[in-house]
């Protein structure tokens, strides 16, 4: 059954009333004022997708430059900007925002809610992300992009070695982005805490939502370290502070500690929601629930905790005391266990179920192969002596592409093929999807597998060229060829998306027979998501007649229909027992105004224009005030 009958019944009963309450203005005005989690989620995904294209093209330029020894396609100065922006964009402007986009769209649907807990904060987060991304990517067009590498080690990135505005773009851009990421994370946490459908106790939360929860929890603790690092560097650069200046009592390793205290958790911040996508897809195409759900949840949570205890393995070559090295080596080995649990949980699910290989599952199988390889080389980097031999070589470049392309891009592509029908109401072509998969899978491995060899042959990362006679040129040429295949493969998916948007077959409610609540809505969902808030009786609401039945059963229950204003249901934190109705805010332009305020502050600091900074501060403070100004009616509202 691909149309959910109960949903249709409920919609006929109460759909019109709800639509009146929930519809937003369209057109240009609606563009600037929307607070709908689905529109914002889609926006996140499209914008992050554009950054992926930009970073991908940067990579193609680099691969072309490296195709042979001593080529002169780009200058070293440009090459250094390219790899800095490639890394920064992929990590900060693509992976996390793309997965936040999935989260924005899917979390409320999966937990049976009508929106996020803070819809305006959600819109604000998007605008801030977009402005940070535009500042950072835009800088490349003016040749003023940062060129200190994505982790920007001091003192190279201090004013005296990297003059110009590029590094300031990095510091301020990431600070701005940090605001967006933190806002998004807090929103996810509160949403899941208070907005779950009745009956969704914590042991019935879908695994994708768990991934988003753990990631958000990590963001709350990890991003401050990055923010502090960047703020201190900016103070050093612009105001002659000496945080990182060893001549004046500062210390250069302080940067590295703070950076990796954020940076390593960030790997899991990126990967955990992506693994959540995998956990959502595997049961659907294995026709059985995931094996060992509690273990998978526990391993995600454990990863989130241990992830904060491994940062020094990025610093094994800096000359730290032996004892601390041994500790961080042990922690880095231990953290592979939770990932192993998840891998074997999926494998056992596949092995015990009935495997149906449609495109989303194809990407997941590709993910399993690639990600396991990345994990295995990851274990090697916990082995300190081996790490010190291959650290900062192409072996490392190979490793983290297997982890991040494997652990994030493959699941994201799987997610796009899986949920495209839900997002847009149209289905992607399976045939093009298979072509795209094989081209990407082969292209990826031809590009990155030889990098292991190059690393062992002594090729350091971040070199814009290399000497002939080192045995590197052949491998590099092969990689460049692979990169072009990869590009073609990804373009096929892009074409597939554009084509399906126009003329793809209409998507049914539940095209794949998925188990979670997003499939109970229409494709695409109505503005109010659920005409009647379902009551959840199991971990697999869609495979469980009882849960679905509540949607048509409760059409006369006011606290399930919630049509007295723009309402959602507040349920208890752990057990999901209904408490009272919440009123959610209407569409508004205030989040955009606030984001513009922050953008002005950033630009003012960047170009040292005091007036602009002050204007930005005033706009921000004013925006905050109008946002929080209490409504006179004593409704149970939220700040």
């Amino acid at each position, binding site marked *: 059954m691909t149309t959910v009958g109960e949903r249709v019944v409920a919609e006929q009963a109460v759909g019109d009333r709800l639509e009146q309450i929930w519809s937003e203005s369209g057109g240009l005005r609606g563009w600037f004022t929307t607070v709908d989690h689905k529109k914002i989620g889609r926006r996140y995904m499209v914008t992050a997708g554009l950054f992926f294209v930009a970073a991908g093209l940067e990579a193609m330029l680099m691969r072309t430059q490296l195709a042979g020894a001593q080529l002169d396609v780009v200058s070293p100065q440009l090459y250094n900007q390219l790899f800095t922006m490639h890394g920064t964009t992929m990590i900060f402007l693509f992976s996390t925002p793309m997965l936040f986009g999935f989260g924005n769209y899917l979390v409320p649907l999966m937990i049976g809610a009508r929106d996020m807990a803070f819809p305006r904060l959600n819109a604000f987060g998007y605008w801030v992300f977009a402005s940070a991304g535009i500042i950072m990517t835009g800088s490349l067009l003016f040749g003023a992009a940062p060129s200190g590498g994505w982790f920007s080690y001091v003192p190279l990135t201090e004013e005296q070695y990297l003059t110009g505005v590029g590094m300031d773009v990095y510091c301020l851009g990431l600070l701005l982005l940090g605001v967006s990421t933190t806002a998004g994370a*807090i929103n996810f946490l509160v949403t899941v805490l208070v907005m779950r459908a009745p009956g969704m106790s914590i042991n019935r939360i879908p695994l994708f939502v768990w991934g988003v929860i753990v990631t958000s929890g990590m963001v709350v603790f990890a991003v401050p370290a990055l923010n502090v690092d960047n703020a201190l560097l900016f103070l050093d650069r612009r105001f002659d*502070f000496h945080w990182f200046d060893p001549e004046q009592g500062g*210390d250069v390793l302080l940067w590295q500690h703070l950076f990796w205290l954020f940076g390593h958790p960030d790997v899991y911040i990126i990967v955990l929601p992506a693994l959540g996508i995998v956990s959502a897809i595997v049961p659907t195409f294995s026709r059985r629930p995931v094996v060992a759900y509690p273990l998978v949840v526990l391993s995600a949570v454990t990863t989130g905790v241990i992830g904060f205890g491994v940062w020094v393995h990025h610093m094994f070559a800096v000359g730290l005391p032996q004892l601390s090295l041994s500790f961080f080596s042990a922690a880095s080995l231990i953290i592979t266990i939770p990932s192993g649990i998840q891998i074997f949980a999926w494998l056992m699910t596949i092995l015990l179920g009935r495997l149906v290989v449609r495109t989303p599952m194809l990407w997941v199988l590709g993910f399993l192969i690639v990600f396991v390889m990345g994990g295995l080389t990851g274990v090697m980097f916990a082995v300190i002596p081996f790490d010190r031999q291959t650290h900062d070589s192409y072996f490392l470049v190979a490793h983290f592409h297997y982890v991040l392309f494997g652990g994030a891009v493959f699941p994201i592509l799987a997610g796009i093929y899986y949920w495209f029908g839900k997002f847009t109401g149209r289905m992607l072509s399976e045939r093009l999807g298979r072509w795209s998969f094989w081209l990407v899978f082969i292209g990826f491995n031809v590009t990155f597998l030889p990098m292991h060899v190059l690393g062992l042959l002594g090729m350091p990362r971040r070199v814009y060229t290399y000497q002939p006679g080192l045995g590197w040129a052949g491998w590099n040429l092969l990689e460049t060829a692979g990169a072009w295949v990869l590009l073609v493969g990804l373009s096929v998916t892009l074409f597939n998306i554009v084509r399906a948007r126009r003329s793809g077959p209409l998507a049914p409610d539940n095209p794949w027979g998925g188990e979670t609540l997003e499939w109970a809505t229409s494709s695409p969902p109505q503005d109010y998501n659920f005409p009647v808030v379902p009551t959840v009786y199991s971990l697999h609401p869609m495979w469980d007649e009882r849960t679905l039945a509540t949607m048509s059963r409760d059409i006369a229950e006011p606290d399930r229909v919630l049509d007295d204003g723009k309402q959602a249901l507040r349920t*208890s934190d752990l057990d999901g027992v209904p408490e009272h109705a919440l009123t959610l805010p209407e569409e508004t332009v205030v989040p955009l105004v606030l984001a513009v305020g922050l953008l002005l502050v950033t630009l003012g600091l960047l170009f040292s224009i005091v007036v602009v900074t002050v204007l930005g501060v005033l706009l921000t403070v004013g925006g905050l005030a109008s946002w929080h100004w209490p409504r006179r009616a004593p409704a149970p509202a939220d700040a």
Partner: protein
Amino acid sequence: MTAATTATAAAMRPSALRREVPAGRRAGWWGMVLFLVTDLALFAALLAAYFYLRFVTSEQWPPGDISEPKLLKAWIMTGLLLGSSVPLVFADLGIKKGSRARLLAGGILTVLLGLAFLYVQYREFTEKLREFSPSTNAYGSAFFTITGFHGLHVIAGVLALSFVLLAAATGRITRSHHALVRIVALYWHTVGAVWVVIFASLYLAAQL
């Protein structure tokens, strides 16, 4: 049908009787808690950076010709900021009982104490700047970054409290609608608590 009757209807359902947990906090309260957690992590990172520099510095602390921080003003600041939380609790409890006068009186006193804190901090900064500045050395950078960042929090708190008082004065905060007071008070108390840690780290511990 109004929200009130919806709530009543919900309260009369059998499922409401089976409820075992007390009613949860507001979403906005949780949002503020999480914001404060991430903000505390920020201060933790700053203080960790400070102590890191202190431990890798082999000479005496504070380094260079900078003398040990004098405590008098800092004690006064600590007293002012911790003291300012008391009238705020009074105000918060007042509006819970529906007393707008208590809210306004307590809130105004808190704002005044907050402003007094900022004034003493300004005096402290001018005095320190005669001895050293953020550009003198890493200690100077750390001292002014951390205390300055905290000062910004106090400024934000004073603004937020004034905003709440304005809303209260225009009758927008009532007995049944005062979550904003709760949430802003939570922020203010936390900023006070952070100051105690900063005082202990930058002033008291520097004496050791």
